[in-house]
């Protein structure tokens, strides 16, 4: 009885949230098993798993899944490692610290499309880009980034965008470091590496977990950066699952295949999440 009242009071909120999630999901599942192309309203009906088959047998499908995971893994690794180092670097007070922090965080406020265009033209253009000029200055042949290393270029672009986010979270986490503990460890003769290993990193574990989770949610659906820089190419070298869904569905106005692709993306996200939560969770339990 005493348990019932709080539950009954919570029920409206829980039910609303549940509906909020389940209705779109059920609709997506429904669309994915019917023939539903906006351009051909005359063709309709139940077709079972044909949409899924069509999405999965796409020649670029395997590449797209690999690219999605590569992009996700690389960007998370780069942002967490560099973010930690930068956060530790600017944790100590020094003149002009406020300005440096603002500069470090600013890339996060650049819109994805603008960020992609900045990198495409200002930095990576093989003729007038900054990187090409550096190569020419040292007498080398400029690297044609988007042609020769399409996925790597996208990884660089997305990492640049997400690094400030990671840094910001880590800075705030370091703010709450217990200064007395640090003091005590110094008295006991611990060097910096030992402090890092036994004090800083364990303290930051929780925020690392947060960064990994949030980045994973957003990075699974990276689209604007790919669309504006390489258009998924050359070939399918920089196509990820989100771009594949766009190509197959939005260009075709085939809501059926799009829904099948979306469901697949949900499954992929869940698989990735399970692995990541396992990894991160282990760290949190300690």
């Amino acid at each position, binding site marked *: 009885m005493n348990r019932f009242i709080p539950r009954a009071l919570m029920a409206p909120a829980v039910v609303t949230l549940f509906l909020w999630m389940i209705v779109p999901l059920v609709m997506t599942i429904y669309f994915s098993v019917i023939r539903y192309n906006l351009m051909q309203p005359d*063709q309709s009906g139940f077709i079972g798993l044909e949409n899924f088959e069509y999405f999965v047998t796409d020649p670029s499908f395997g590449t797209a899944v690999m690219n999605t995971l590569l992009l996700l893994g690389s960007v998370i690794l780069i942002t967490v490692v560099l973010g930690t180092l930068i956060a530790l670097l600017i944790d100590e007070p020094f003149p002009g610290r406020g300005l440096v922090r603002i500069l470090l965080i600013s890339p996060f406020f650049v819109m994805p499309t603008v960020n992609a265009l900045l990198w495409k033209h200002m930095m990576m253009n093989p003729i*007038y880009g900054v990187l090409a000029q550096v190569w020419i200055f040292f007498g080398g042949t400029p690297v*044609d980034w988007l*042609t020769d290393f399409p996925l790597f270029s996208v990884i660089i672009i997305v990492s640049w965008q997400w690094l400030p986010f990671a840094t910001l979270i880590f800075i705030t986490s370091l703010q709450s470091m217990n200064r007395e503990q640090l003091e005590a460890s110094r008295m006991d003769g611990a060097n910096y590496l030992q402090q890092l290993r036994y004090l800083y990193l364990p303290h930051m574990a929780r925020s690392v977990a947060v960064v990994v989770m949030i980045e994973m949610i957003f990075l699974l659906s990276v689209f604007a950066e790919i669309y504006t820089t390489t258009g998924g190419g050359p*070939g399918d070298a920089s196509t990820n699952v989100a771009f594949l869904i766009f190509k197959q569905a939005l260009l075709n106005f085939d809501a059926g295949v799009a829904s099948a692709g979306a469901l697949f993306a949900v499954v992929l996200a869940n698989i990735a999440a399970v692995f990541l939560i396992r990894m991160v969770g282990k760290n949190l339990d300690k």
Partner: protein
Amino acid sequence: MKLTTRLSLSAALVMSLCGASHAETELVVATVNNGHMIEMQKLSKNFEQANPDIKLKWVTLEEGVLRQRVTTDIATKGGQFDVMTIGMYETPIWGKKGWLQELKTDAKYDADDILPAMRNGLSVDGKMFAVPFYGESSMLMYRKDLADKAGIKVADKPTWTDIKALAAKIHDPKNGVYGICLRGKPGWGDNMAFLTTLVNTNGGQWFDTSWKPQLESQPWKDSINFYVDLLKNYGPPGSSANSFNEILALYNEGKCGMWIDATIAASFITDPKQSKVADKVAFAQAPTAVTPKGANWLWAWALAIPSGSKKVDAASKFVTWATSKEYIELVAKTNGWAHVPTGTRKSTYANPEFQKAAKFAAAEKAAIDSANPSDSTLPKSPYVGVQFAAIPEFQAIGATVGQEMSAALAGKKSVDAALKASQVAAEREMKKAGYYK
């Protein structure tokens, strides 16, 4: 606090009642964020003053997003938009499906003044379903100073062999000048628009009369091999990521000797405000190979009214105003003749003021007049369209083939392998769409 809420509520009520009593039609216009359309939005104040009972509400979007929004709206009978800006690709498809209102115009509007290529491209069985706001074709834009230095006179109708020879002569990467810049970024409206014209002029086509994709035919092989070889030897690095805007930036910096692209580019590269080579540019028709058929593309952004709209009269008033001779004169009066929307009316090109202001006018008109969307391939084709096939499946097919072509250009795949993969993908799409019963 309470009082103000009440007051504002009652005010809103009063206003809505007034609105109901005073019959005012609100037209929602969906359009592209191109310079010409933005100008139309500014000048539409004149239209509202002349028609006080019509109010315009603008939805201005980027091309890809616009296409998705209007397609979804019209296919689901959403009725969000009363006037839509659509291209030459959508018009025949939707017109055939009965999704668009047929546009009947009066003598004052003078529909016969519209360039025949544009009118045909926007009509189905002689009925016009959209009126062109501005149109374009493709042509060769080259650096006259470099051609003179190489001692070559470019013919008014050059062949691809001539182009290759000239590209070899003026290619000078040490001094930052590349022989020829062409599109390479994947997309049905990006690299495939250009490549389709190249294939057409080599005597190829997208589909034969039984809708079988022809991507592994000899003309395709010849065209793509030629293109990859040309850009590898005489093109700028990074071509596989270049589309219209990227090449425009290169050309304005004086990095390109030649460029074959949309005629609209001419007004940018001859504008001294943005181009370093404004006074050194000359124009010729798009190069040809085996046949002149389909060697230059044809595109228009046009205004159309969805069928079943309850505001057809007001919407017709607006679309005829925006595509009329008077509108073009209005733009000329406000911004000068160099900035009027081109490619739509004979009267624009006949105007001596316009000819004076636009160096490229003659070449552009010749290019548009020589294009015919219903007859643009050497072998007979079942589809309409010069640089695309006006069927719903084409966007997806074009996107996939575009990616394969960019892979071939980047040297990640051989031309034959890329064409094979394209053929497989195209057959898959056509099969799924039920073309082979």
